Protein backbone atom coordinates (compact mmCIF):
# COMPACT_ATOMS: atom_id res chain seq x y z
CA UNK A 1 0.00 0.00 0.00
CA UNK A 2 3.10 2.21 0.11
CA UNK A 3 2.39 3.32 3.67
CA UNK A 4 4.81 5.78 5.24
CA UNK A 5 4.38 6.08 9.02
CA UNK A 6 3.92 9.61 10.39
CA UNK A 7 6.90 11.38 11.93
CA UNK A 8 7.13 12.32 15.60
CA UNK A 9 5.30 15.63 15.33
CA UNK A 10 2.57 14.52 12.93
CA UNK A 11 2.08 11.33 15.00
CA UNK A 12 1.83 13.48 18.13
CA UNK A 13 -0.75 15.78 16.55
CA UNK A 14 -2.74 12.74 15.44
CA UNK A 15 -2.91 11.42 19.00
CA UNK A 16 -3.68 14.85 20.47
CA UNK A 17 -6.53 15.32 17.99
CA UNK A 18 -7.93 11.90 18.85
CA UNK A 19 -7.77 12.63 22.61
CA UNK A 20 -9.47 15.98 22.18
CA UNK A 21 -12.17 14.44 19.96
CA UNK A 22 -12.89 11.88 22.71
CA UNK A 23 -13.00 14.64 25.34
CA UNK A 24 -15.23 16.78 23.13
CA UNK A 25 -17.68 13.86 22.86
CA UNK A 26 -17.71 12.91 26.52
CA UNK A 27 -16.78 16.21 28.23
CA UNK A 28 -16.49 14.33 31.53
CA UNK A 29 -12.97 15.42 32.44
CA UNK A 30 -13.53 19.00 31.28
CA UNK A 31 -16.64 19.46 33.37
CA UNK A 32 -15.18 17.80 36.45
CA UNK A 33 -12.05 19.99 36.27
CA UNK A 34 -14.09 23.10 35.60
CA UNK A 35 -16.61 22.46 38.36
CA UNK A 36 -13.75 21.76 40.76
CA UNK A 37 -12.02 25.02 39.76
CA UNK A 38 -15.14 27.18 40.15
CA UNK A 39 -16.17 25.53 43.43
CA UNK A 40 -12.67 25.91 44.87
CA UNK A 41 -12.59 29.60 43.87
CA UNK A 42 -15.95 30.11 45.57
CA UNK A 43 -15.01 28.25 48.75
CA UNK A 44 -11.69 30.07 49.09
CA UNK A 45 -13.52 33.37 48.71
CA UNK A 46 -15.46 32.76 51.92
CA UNK A 47 -12.66 31.27 54.00
CA UNK A 48 -10.92 34.51 54.99
CA UNK A 49 -12.02 37.56 56.87
CA UNK A 50 -11.99 40.32 54.26
CA UNK A 51 -11.03 42.95 56.84
CA UNK A 52 -7.80 41.04 57.53
CA UNK A 53 -6.86 39.59 54.12
CA UNK A 54 -8.20 41.29 51.01
CA UNK A 55 -9.33 39.19 48.01
CA UNK A 56 -6.43 40.72 46.07
CA UNK A 57 -3.92 39.27 48.52
CA UNK A 58 -5.54 35.86 48.43
CA UNK A 59 -5.84 35.60 44.66
CA UNK A 60 -2.28 34.40 43.80
CA UNK A 61 -2.38 31.57 46.34
CA UNK A 62 -5.88 30.52 45.34
CA UNK A 63 -4.92 30.59 41.67
CA UNK A 64 -2.11 28.06 42.08
CA UNK A 65 -4.01 25.72 44.38
CA UNK A 66 -6.95 25.62 41.97
CA UNK A 67 -4.72 25.30 38.93
CA UNK A 68 -2.61 22.46 40.35
CA UNK A 69 -5.49 20.27 41.48
CA UNK A 70 -7.71 20.89 38.46
CA UNK A 71 -4.69 19.95 36.32
CA UNK A 72 -4.32 16.69 38.27
CA UNK A 73 -7.97 15.89 37.65
CA UNK A 74 -7.45 16.37 33.93
CA UNK A 75 -4.19 14.43 33.83
CA UNK A 76 -5.83 11.40 35.47
CA UNK A 77 -7.95 10.86 32.39
CA UNK A 78 -5.08 11.12 29.92
CA UNK A 79 -4.09 7.45 30.03
CA UNK A 80 -7.31 6.19 31.57
CA UNK A 81 -8.92 6.47 28.12
CA UNK A 82 -6.16 4.24 26.75
CA UNK A 83 -6.59 1.60 29.44
CA UNK A 84 -10.21 0.91 28.66
CA UNK A 85 -10.08 -1.82 25.97
CA UNK A 86 -6.29 -1.37 25.79
CA UNK A 87 -6.19 1.35 23.16
CA UNK A 88 -2.61 1.88 24.30
CA UNK A 89 -1.63 -1.51 22.79
CA UNK A 90 -2.82 -0.32 19.38
CA UNK A 91 -0.56 2.72 19.74
CA UNK A 92 2.40 0.63 20.90
CA UNK A 93 2.23 -1.88 18.04
CA UNK A 94 1.86 0.91 15.47
CA UNK A 95 4.98 2.29 13.78
CA UNK A 96 4.82 5.69 15.50
CA UNK A 97 7.55 6.38 18.04
CA UNK A 98 7.11 6.36 21.82
CA UNK A 99 8.12 10.02 21.78
CA UNK A 100 5.18 10.77 19.46
CA UNK A 101 2.82 9.06 21.92
CA UNK A 102 4.21 11.10 24.81
CA UNK A 103 4.14 14.38 22.91
CA UNK A 104 0.64 13.72 21.58
CA UNK A 105 -0.67 13.00 25.05
CA UNK A 106 1.12 16.09 26.42
CA UNK A 107 -0.24 18.38 23.67
CA UNK A 108 -3.76 17.05 24.25
CA UNK A 109 -3.41 17.61 27.99
CA UNK A 110 -2.04 21.12 27.49
CA UNK A 111 -4.94 22.17 25.23
CA UNK A 112 -7.40 20.60 27.66
CA UNK A 113 -5.91 22.43 30.65
CA UNK A 114 -5.74 25.71 28.74
CA UNK A 115 -9.46 25.37 28.05
CA UNK A 116 -10.13 24.87 31.78
CA UNK A 117 -7.93 27.84 32.71
CA UNK A 118 -9.60 30.00 30.04
CA UNK A 119 -12.69 29.83 32.26
CA UNK A 120 -11.00 29.61 35.67
CA UNK A 121 -8.76 32.70 35.30
CA UNK A 122 -11.57 35.11 34.32
CA UNK A 123 -13.62 33.60 37.16
CA UNK A 124 -10.73 34.35 39.54
CA UNK A 125 -10.57 37.94 38.26
CA UNK A 126 -14.30 38.29 38.81
CA UNK A 127 -14.45 36.74 42.31
CA UNK A 128 -11.31 38.38 43.65
CA UNK A 129 -11.73 41.77 42.02
CA UNK A 130 -8.50 41.51 40.03
CA UNK A 131 -7.47 44.04 37.39
CA UNK A 132 -8.56 42.69 34.01
CA UNK A 133 -6.01 44.56 31.88
CA UNK A 134 -2.34 43.86 31.30
CA UNK A 135 -1.61 42.11 34.64
CA UNK A 136 -4.18 39.44 33.85
CA UNK A 137 -2.68 38.88 30.40
CA UNK A 138 0.80 38.53 31.92
CA UNK A 139 -0.50 36.16 34.60
CA UNK A 140 -2.20 34.09 31.88
CA UNK A 141 1.19 33.83 30.17
CA UNK A 142 2.80 32.70 33.43
CA UNK A 143 0.02 30.16 33.92
CA UNK A 144 0.65 28.83 30.41
CA UNK A 145 4.37 28.39 31.09
CA UNK A 146 3.58 26.63 34.36
CA UNK A 147 1.06 24.40 32.58
CA UNK A 148 3.71 23.28 30.10
CA UNK A 149 5.90 22.01 32.94
CA UNK A 150 3.00 20.51 34.87
CA UNK A 151 1.77 18.70 31.75
CA UNK A 152 5.28 17.45 30.91
CA UNK A 153 5.65 15.82 34.34
CA UNK A 154 2.00 14.86 34.77
CA UNK A 155 1.77 13.05 31.43
CA UNK A 156 4.70 10.83 32.34
CA UNK A 157 3.34 9.98 35.78
CA UNK A 158 -0.17 9.51 34.43
CA UNK A 159 1.24 6.75 32.18
CA UNK A 160 3.06 5.23 35.16
CA UNK A 161 0.15 5.37 37.56
CA UNK A 162 -2.66 4.21 35.29
CA UNK A 163 -1.86 0.50 35.61
CA UNK A 164 -1.81 0.59 39.39
CA UNK A 165 -4.69 -0.01 41.76
CA UNK A 166 -4.20 3.36 43.46
CA UNK A 167 -3.84 5.48 40.32
CA UNK A 168 -5.87 8.39 41.75
CA UNK A 169 -3.59 8.54 44.76
CA UNK A 170 -0.33 7.71 43.04
CA UNK A 171 -0.49 10.43 40.37
CA UNK A 172 -0.55 13.35 42.85
CA UNK A 173 1.99 11.62 45.10
CA UNK A 174 4.44 11.19 42.24
CA UNK A 175 3.75 14.47 40.48
CA UNK A 176 3.48 17.06 43.24
CA UNK A 177 7.16 16.94 44.33
CA UNK A 178 8.15 17.61 40.71
CA UNK A 179 5.60 20.41 40.42
CA UNK A 180 7.26 22.31 43.30
CA UNK A 181 10.05 24.05 41.33
CA UNK A 182 7.57 25.02 38.60
CA UNK A 183 4.97 26.28 41.05
CA UNK A 184 7.52 28.19 43.15
CA UNK A 185 8.77 30.19 40.17
CA UNK A 186 5.31 30.69 38.69
CA UNK A 187 3.62 31.63 41.99
CA UNK A 188 6.29 34.19 42.87
CA UNK A 189 6.13 35.72 39.40
CA UNK A 190 2.32 35.88 39.44
CA UNK A 191 2.23 37.38 42.96
CA UNK A 192 4.56 40.18 41.89
CA UNK A 193 2.53 40.92 38.77
CA UNK A 194 -0.70 40.93 40.80
CA UNK A 195 0.99 43.36 43.23
CA UNK A 196 1.47 45.78 40.34
CA UNK A 197 5.23 45.30 39.94
CA UNK A 198 6.71 45.73 36.45
CA UNK A 199 7.08 42.66 34.24
CA UNK A 200 10.83 43.30 33.94
CA UNK A 201 11.09 42.46 37.64
CA UNK A 202 9.90 38.90 37.06
CA UNK A 203 12.10 38.28 34.01
CA UNK A 204 14.46 36.00 35.93
CA UNK A 205 11.59 33.90 37.27
CA UNK A 206 10.12 33.53 33.80
CA UNK A 207 13.48 32.39 32.41
CA UNK A 208 13.71 29.90 35.25
CA UNK A 209 10.23 28.66 34.41
CA UNK A 210 11.14 28.21 30.74
CA UNK A 211 14.30 26.34 31.76
CA UNK A 212 12.28 23.97 33.99
CA UNK A 213 9.83 23.40 31.14
CA UNK A 214 12.58 22.46 28.68
CA UNK A 215 14.33 20.16 31.15
CA UNK A 216 11.09 18.43 32.13
CA UNK A 217 9.89 17.99 28.54
CA UNK A 218 13.09 16.30 27.42
CA UNK A 219 13.68 14.29 30.60
CA UNK A 220 10.09 13.01 30.67
CA UNK A 221 10.08 12.23 26.95
CA UNK A 222 13.22 10.13 27.38
CA UNK A 223 11.83 8.37 30.45
CA UNK A 224 8.44 7.73 28.86
CA UNK A 225 9.38 4.69 26.77
CA UNK A 226 10.61 2.91 29.93
CA UNK A 227 7.25 3.38 31.65
CA UNK A 228 5.59 1.44 28.83
CA UNK A 229 7.83 -1.62 29.12
CA UNK A 230 6.09 -4.68 30.55
Amino acid at each position, binding site marked *: MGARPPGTLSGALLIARKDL*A*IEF*RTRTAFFSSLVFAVLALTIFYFTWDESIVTPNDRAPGVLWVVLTFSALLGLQRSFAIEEHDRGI*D*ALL*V*SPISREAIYLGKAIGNLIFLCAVQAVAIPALALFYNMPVGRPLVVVSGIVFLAMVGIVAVGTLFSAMAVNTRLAELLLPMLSLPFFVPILMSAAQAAARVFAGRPVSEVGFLLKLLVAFDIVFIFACMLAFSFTL*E*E
Partner: protein
Amino acid sequence: MFGRRRAVDAVDLTLAAGDCVALFGPNGAGKTTLLRLISGLLKPTKGTIRVGGQSLRDDASARGLLGLISHQSMLYAALTSRENVEFAARLYGVADPRAAATKALERMRIADRAGAPVRSLSRGLQQRVSIARAIVHDPRVVLLDEPYTGLDAAGGAALTDMLSSLRAGGASLVLVTHNVEEGLAVATQAAVMLGGRIVRRDDARTIDQRIFQNDYRAMVLGAIDRASERVSVPA
Protein backbone atom coordinates in the same frame (compact mmCIF):
# COMPACT_ATOMS: atom_id res chain seq x y z
CA MET B 1 9.73 -14.78 32.12
CA PHE B 2 6.94 -13.73 34.51
CA GLY B 3 8.76 -13.60 37.82
CA ARG B 4 10.31 -17.07 38.09
CA ARG B 5 7.95 -18.67 35.62
CA ARG B 6 8.90 -19.24 32.00
CA ALA B 7 5.75 -18.24 30.14
CA VAL B 8 7.25 -19.01 26.73
CA ASP B 9 10.28 -21.25 26.40
CA ALA B 10 12.46 -22.13 23.40
CA VAL B 11 9.84 -21.38 20.78
CA ASP B 12 11.22 -21.38 17.25
CA LEU B 13 8.65 -20.35 14.68
CA THR B 14 9.29 -19.42 11.07
CA LEU B 15 6.51 -18.30 8.76
CA ALA B 16 6.77 -17.87 5.02
CA ALA B 17 4.55 -15.51 3.02
CA GLY B 18 1.03 -16.94 2.84
CA ASP B 19 1.56 -19.30 5.78
CA CYS B 20 -0.92 -19.54 8.61
CA VAL B 21 -0.03 -21.27 11.83
CA ALA B 22 -2.89 -22.18 14.15
CA LEU B 23 -1.73 -22.29 17.75
CA PHE B 24 -3.76 -24.50 20.06
CA GLY B 25 -3.32 -25.01 23.75
CA PRO B 26 -5.08 -24.86 27.11
CA ASN B 27 -5.41 -21.68 29.15
CA GLY B 28 -2.04 -20.54 30.45
CA ALA B 29 -0.07 -22.43 27.80
CA GLY B 30 1.66 -19.22 26.70
CA LYS B 31 -0.20 -18.56 23.44
CA THR B 32 -1.20 -14.97 24.21
CA THR B 33 2.23 -14.25 25.68
CA LEU B 34 3.81 -15.54 22.46
CA LEU B 35 1.61 -13.18 20.41
CA ARG B 36 2.51 -10.27 22.69
CA LEU B 37 6.18 -11.12 22.23
CA ILE B 38 5.86 -11.27 18.45
CA SER B 39 3.95 -7.98 18.39
CA GLY B 40 6.66 -6.27 20.45
CA LEU B 41 4.36 -5.54 23.40
CA LEU B 42 6.56 -7.77 25.56
CA LYS B 43 10.32 -7.92 25.56
CA PRO B 44 11.80 -11.43 25.34
CA THR B 45 14.33 -12.35 28.03
CA LYS B 46 16.32 -14.13 25.34
CA GLY B 47 16.04 -14.55 21.59
CA THR B 48 14.91 -12.35 18.73
CA ILE B 49 11.75 -11.76 16.76
CA ARG B 50 12.09 -10.59 13.18
CA VAL B 51 9.50 -9.59 10.62
CA GLY B 52 10.82 -9.47 7.08
CA GLY B 53 14.31 -9.66 8.56
CA GLN B 54 13.76 -6.56 10.71
CA SER B 55 13.66 -6.53 14.50
CA LEU B 56 10.40 -5.05 15.77
CA ARG B 57 11.95 -3.51 18.84
CA ASP B 58 14.87 -1.87 17.04
CA ASP B 59 13.05 -0.75 13.92
CA ALA B 60 9.79 1.14 14.49
CA SER B 61 8.86 0.98 10.80
CA ALA B 62 8.91 -2.85 10.98
CA ARG B 63 5.89 -2.59 13.29
CA GLY B 64 4.00 -1.20 10.30
CA LEU B 65 4.12 -4.69 8.77
CA LEU B 66 2.13 -6.12 11.64
CA GLY B 67 -1.55 -6.28 12.52
CA LEU B 68 -2.76 -7.40 15.95
CA ILE B 69 -6.18 -8.64 16.98
CA SER B 70 -6.23 -9.08 20.71
CA HIS B 71 -8.64 -10.16 23.46
CA GLN B 72 -9.43 -6.50 24.01
CA SER B 73 -10.93 -4.52 21.14
CA MET B 74 -8.29 -1.73 21.35
CA LEU B 75 -11.03 0.67 20.25
CA TYR B 76 -12.11 4.01 21.70
CA ALA B 77 -15.71 3.71 22.81
CA ALA B 78 -16.54 7.40 22.31
CA LEU B 79 -15.41 7.42 18.68
CA THR B 80 -17.37 5.95 15.79
CA SER B 81 -16.35 2.75 13.99
CA ARG B 82 -15.07 4.79 11.04
CA GLU B 83 -13.11 7.19 13.26
CA ASN B 84 -11.44 4.29 15.06
CA VAL B 85 -10.42 2.53 11.84
CA GLU B 86 -9.41 5.79 10.16
CA PHE B 87 -7.29 6.73 13.17
CA ALA B 88 -5.48 3.39 12.86
CA ALA B 89 -4.96 3.99 9.12
CA ARG B 90 -3.40 7.37 9.88
CA LEU B 91 -1.12 5.84 12.53
CA TYR B 92 0.23 3.51 9.83
CA GLY B 93 0.55 6.30 7.28
CA VAL B 94 -1.94 4.79 4.83
CA ALA B 95 -2.18 7.06 1.76
CA ASP B 96 -5.98 7.47 1.75
CA PRO B 97 -7.11 6.71 5.32
CA ARG B 98 -10.80 7.32 4.69
CA ALA B 99 -10.97 5.01 1.67
CA ALA B 100 -8.91 2.37 3.47
CA ALA B 101 -11.22 2.57 6.51
CA THR B 102 -14.30 2.16 4.29
CA LYS B 103 -12.73 -0.84 2.55
CA ALA B 104 -11.76 -2.53 5.83
CA LEU B 105 -15.23 -1.99 7.30
CA GLU B 106 -16.80 -3.40 4.13
CA ARG B 107 -14.54 -6.47 4.31
CA MET B 108 -15.85 -7.13 7.80
CA ARG B 109 -19.42 -6.42 6.64
CA ILE B 110 -19.94 -3.58 9.10
CA ALA B 111 -19.85 -0.56 6.77
CA ASP B 112 -23.53 0.12 7.53
CA ARG B 113 -22.57 0.91 11.15
CA ALA B 114 -19.58 3.08 10.26
CA GLY B 115 -21.10 6.18 11.83
CA ALA B 116 -22.16 4.51 15.07
CA PRO B 117 -20.16 5.15 18.24
CA VAL B 118 -18.35 1.97 19.24
CA ARG B 119 -19.98 2.04 22.67
CA SER B 120 -23.38 1.57 21.02
CA LEU B 121 -22.31 -1.64 19.24
CA SER B 122 -22.71 -5.18 20.54
CA ARG B 123 -19.65 -7.24 21.53
CA GLY B 124 -19.68 -9.09 18.20
CA LEU B 125 -19.94 -5.91 16.13
CA GLN B 126 -17.14 -4.34 18.16
CA GLN B 127 -15.03 -7.38 17.35
CA ARG B 128 -15.68 -6.83 13.64
CA VAL B 129 -14.59 -3.18 13.94
CA SER B 130 -11.53 -4.30 15.89
CA ILE B 131 -10.58 -6.71 13.09
CA ALA B 132 -11.14 -3.95 10.50
CA ARG B 133 -8.82 -1.72 12.57
CA ALA B 134 -6.12 -4.40 12.60
CA ILE B 135 -6.12 -5.00 8.84
CA VAL B 136 -6.73 -1.45 7.56
CA HIS B 137 -3.05 -1.00 6.61
CA ASP B 138 -2.84 -4.32 4.75
CA PRO B 139 -0.32 -5.93 7.15
CA ARG B 140 2.17 -8.58 6.06
CA VAL B 141 1.90 -10.45 9.37
CA VAL B 142 -1.39 -10.72 11.24
CA LEU B 143 -1.53 -11.92 14.84
CA LEU B 144 -4.97 -13.09 15.91
CA ASP B 145 -5.84 -13.95 19.49
CA GLU B 146 -9.17 -15.78 19.62
CA PRO B 147 -10.57 -13.63 16.79
CA TYR B 148 -13.81 -15.63 16.47
CA THR B 149 -14.86 -14.80 20.04
CA GLY B 150 -18.20 -13.00 20.06
CA LEU B 151 -18.72 -13.22 16.31
CA ASP B 152 -22.00 -14.54 14.93
CA ALA B 153 -22.14 -16.81 11.86
CA ALA B 154 -21.98 -13.85 9.43
CA GLY B 155 -19.09 -12.27 11.30
CA GLY B 156 -17.25 -15.60 11.48
CA ALA B 157 -17.72 -16.13 7.74
CA ALA B 158 -16.50 -12.58 7.01
CA LEU B 159 -13.43 -13.23 9.14
CA THR B 160 -12.66 -16.58 7.48
CA ASP B 161 -13.01 -14.96 4.02
CA MET B 162 -10.81 -12.08 5.07
CA LEU B 163 -8.11 -14.41 6.48
CA SER B 164 -8.14 -16.46 3.27
CA SER B 165 -7.79 -13.32 1.14
CA LEU B 166 -4.96 -12.01 3.37
CA ARG B 167 -3.14 -15.32 2.92
CA ALA B 168 -3.75 -15.26 -0.82
CA GLY B 169 -2.22 -11.77 -0.82
CA GLY B 170 0.95 -13.14 0.78
CA ALA B 171 0.32 -12.22 4.41
CA SER B 172 1.45 -14.60 7.16
CA LEU B 173 -0.97 -15.34 9.98
CA VAL B 174 -0.58 -16.56 13.55
CA LEU B 175 -3.97 -17.66 14.80
CA VAL B 176 -4.49 -18.49 18.45
CA THR B 177 -7.66 -20.43 19.12
CA HIS B 178 -9.20 -23.15 21.27
CA ASN B 179 -11.44 -24.25 18.43
CA VAL B 180 -9.62 -26.90 16.37
CA GLU B 181 -12.19 -26.84 13.56
CA GLU B 182 -11.96 -23.07 13.05
CA GLY B 183 -8.20 -23.11 13.31
CA LEU B 184 -7.62 -25.90 10.81
CA ALA B 185 -10.06 -24.31 8.32
CA VAL B 186 -7.57 -21.54 7.52
CA ALA B 187 -4.22 -22.88 8.76
CA THR B 188 -1.30 -24.34 6.82
CA GLN B 189 0.46 -25.40 10.03
CA ALA B 190 -1.02 -26.59 13.30
CA ALA B 191 0.94 -26.30 16.53
CA VAL B 192 0.10 -27.24 20.10
CA MET B 193 1.53 -25.24 23.02
CA LEU B 194 1.83 -26.65 26.52
CA GLY B 195 3.72 -25.08 29.40
CA GLY B 196 5.18 -22.37 27.19
CA ARG B 197 6.64 -24.77 24.61
CA ILE B 198 5.46 -25.90 21.21
CA VAL B 199 5.09 -29.63 21.79
CA ARG B 200 3.58 -30.68 18.50
CA ARG B 201 3.62 -29.33 14.97
CA ASP B 202 1.75 -30.69 11.93
CA ASP B 203 1.00 -29.77 8.37
CA ALA B 204 -2.60 -28.60 8.67
CA ARG B 205 -3.35 -29.32 5.01
CA THR B 206 -2.67 -33.05 5.27
CA ILE B 207 -3.76 -33.64 8.83
CA ASP B 208 -6.77 -35.79 9.75
CA GLN B 209 -8.89 -33.34 11.73
CA ARG B 210 -10.55 -36.03 13.87
CA ILE B 211 -7.26 -37.68 14.87
CA PHE B 212 -5.64 -34.32 15.60
CA GLN B 213 -8.63 -33.27 17.69
CA ASN B 214 -8.49 -36.49 19.75
CA ASP B 215 -4.72 -36.23 20.22
CA TYR B 216 -5.03 -32.57 21.20
CA ARG B 217 -7.75 -33.35 23.73
CA ALA B 218 -5.62 -36.11 25.24
CA MET B 219 -2.60 -33.81 25.44
CA VAL B 220 -4.58 -31.02 27.11
CA LEU B 221 -6.27 -33.38 29.59
CA GLY B 222 -2.92 -35.03 30.35
CA ALA B 223 -1.35 -31.65 31.02
CA ILE B 224 -4.24 -30.67 33.30
CA ASP B 225 -3.93 -33.99 35.20
CA ARG B 226 -0.18 -33.50 35.66
CA ALA B 227 -0.73 -29.94 36.86
CA SER B 228 -3.34 -31.03 39.39
CA GLU B 229 -1.01 -33.81 40.64
CA ARG B 230 1.67 -31.17 41.26
CA VAL B 231 -0.64 -29.05 43.39
CA SER B 232 -2.41 -31.92 45.21
CA VAL B 233 -1.49 -32.52 48.85
CA PRO B 234 -0.16 -36.06 49.51
CA ALA B 235 -2.28 -38.14 51.92
